[in-house]
């Protein structure tokens, strides 16, 4: 494989008490690709996300991001280094407006300090304006322009998921890690999401995707990794993975072939 790897992790293990949630899991995400992480409920997909983004400390593992070794300990540092994520159980800032949610995402790419905030220097004002413009542009990008001034809690489910993506994009990530972005969406919304994800990739971002919707995953992913009981049971191109006997047994079921 000639493609440069954006994310390359190996041997990631995580234990919660008596449960081995992750058992030397490895995953490789080439630049500019969409990589899917699938598996039955409780297989450890979200735990894996939480570990690589620093939410849970890993018991062991080798982590390389964009060619640099890192050990995920602090969520905010991981985000600053260029990896943004969304959450399976949507975590928006409910009391803030849709626009403000995205503006919060610009936090780590802006730098107004305390004095700037209090005295509103010209540079602070310029930065604030730039943040606002960038956030509005991102809302347009995910198709939420009409809702900019609405409180985030009042958005529909599908729109909340889109807002989470816009907010994650505001951190200017190289890798966008999405945890079940299609959950709870209807068929139309899923189609729109698919378009959006392909557009994000076309714009040069790399996507790591946890998803249960098999047709979505098979349709857009360049490669797949399948987890079961905290172990990787298969990895490769979607076409190869879907006929893999263990994957069929553990996840897809006989009917899917």
């Amino acid at each position, binding site marked *: 494989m000639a493609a440069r790897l954006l994310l390359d992790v190996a041997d990631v293990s995580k234990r919660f008490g008596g449960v081995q949630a992750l058992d030397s899991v490895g995953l490789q995400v080439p630049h500019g690709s969409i990589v899917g992480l699938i598996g039955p409920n409780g297989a450890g997909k979200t735990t894996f996300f939480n570990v690589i983004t620093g*939410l849970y400390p890993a018991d062991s593992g080798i982590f390389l991001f964009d060619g640099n070794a890192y050990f995920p300990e602090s969520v*905010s540092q991981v985000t600053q280094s260029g990896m*943004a994520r969304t959450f399976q159980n949507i975590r*928006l800032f409910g009391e803030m407006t849709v626009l403000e949610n995205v503006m919060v995402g610009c936090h780590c790419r*802006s730098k107004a300090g305390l004095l700037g905030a209090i005295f509103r220097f010209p540079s602070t004002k310029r*930065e604030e304006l730039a943040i606002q413009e960038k956030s509005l542009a991102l809302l347009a990008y995910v198709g939420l322009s009409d809702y900019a001034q609405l409180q985030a809690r009042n958005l529909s489910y599908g729109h909340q998921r889109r807002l989470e993506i816009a907010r994650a994009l505001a*951190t200017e990530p190289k890798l966008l890690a999405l945890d079940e972005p299609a959950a709870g969406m209807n068929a139309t919304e899923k189609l729109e999401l698919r378009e959006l994800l392909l557009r994000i990739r076309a714009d040069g971002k790399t996507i790591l995707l946890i998803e249960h919707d098999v047709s979505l995953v098979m349709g857009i992913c360049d490669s797949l990794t399948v987890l079961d009981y905290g172990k990787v049971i298969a990895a490769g191109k979607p076409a190869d993975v879907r006929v893999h006997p263990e994957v069929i047994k553990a996840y897809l079921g006989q009917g899917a072939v």
Partner: protein
Amino acid sequence: MLKKLAANHLNRSTYFCLGALALLLLPWIVGASGGNYWVRVVDFALLYIILALGLNVVVGFAGLLDLGYIAFYALGAYSYALLASPHLPQHFETIAAALPQGMHFSPWMVAIFSMILAALFGILLGLPTLQLRGDYLAIVTLGFGEIIRIFMNNLDRPLNLTNGPKGITAIDPIQLFGISFAKPLDLGFVQIPGLYLVFYLFLILAIAVMIVCLHLQNSRIGRAWVAIREDEIAAKAMGINTRNMKLLAFAIGASFAGVAGVFFSAFQGFVSPESFTLWESIVVLAMVVLGGIGHIPGVILGAIVLAVFPEVLRGVAEPVQNALFGHVIVDVEVIRQLIYGLALILVMLYRPGGIWQKGGGK
């Protein structure tokens, strides 16, 4: 369209001028109708506005429940009491020898000093409590507030630092450009009483604090605070250094209280630990919650209502009881606490966002 805009603008500036005029005249109106007692009440209400706005940064913006907030007010008050009264020279010969004219630091210098001191104590309180939220944080902050008060209460032995429960007296009054706020200012055509001068000074301070709060709210930092309040994990995932932002909220909130404390002790001329009890912390918190948590105009309203209301009650409750029953049945203080409790319960039930909440209460 343009005309309409211009008219709107005119309207706004007219309102602004009228508001400013009303504020300028307020002490004269209050003084003429209610006497100096009520001007003092209004002066104190302004101090409470500063306190409530400061606590609002911690509780309202960052969502960190702080029940020991009054400790920072105490730090400011005692800083000035010690640095601008005869207390220390009286009890420490070396200080008396070093300062033959006595301790007379300017309240402005002490205000800056107290601001930094209170901010440092805010960080000191914040550091061990970073992992705590809600009730747990409330308990620790409550303990912190009590520790400070108990120190003030007991630091009269072995060295008499704070004069214990008796408090410190003969604190220098406020001075600005050589003008003492303890006596009337003679402008030739009119004499401005000291209490009125204090009003103007506190008004300027309160407005300054309000502007700082408004600016902070609509900034990168204010957004980060609210994000932490709404969802700390998501805030971290936005690349926000939640630890630093929380400490910053503690420090800013505390520094406002520190400044207010300095002017409190300069205004009163006397401080004692009983001004800084848990009850006071709760009153300031009630101002924030009752007025409109996280919403600056609401917090200001809450501070005014709860600062003025007990005084109104004091003026009404006893005469009414005397007229009805011939003697006082329920102590004013008890009635006050009853009504406070009732008001809080009602607000929580029917307007959980406060009397004047964001967006007019959607």
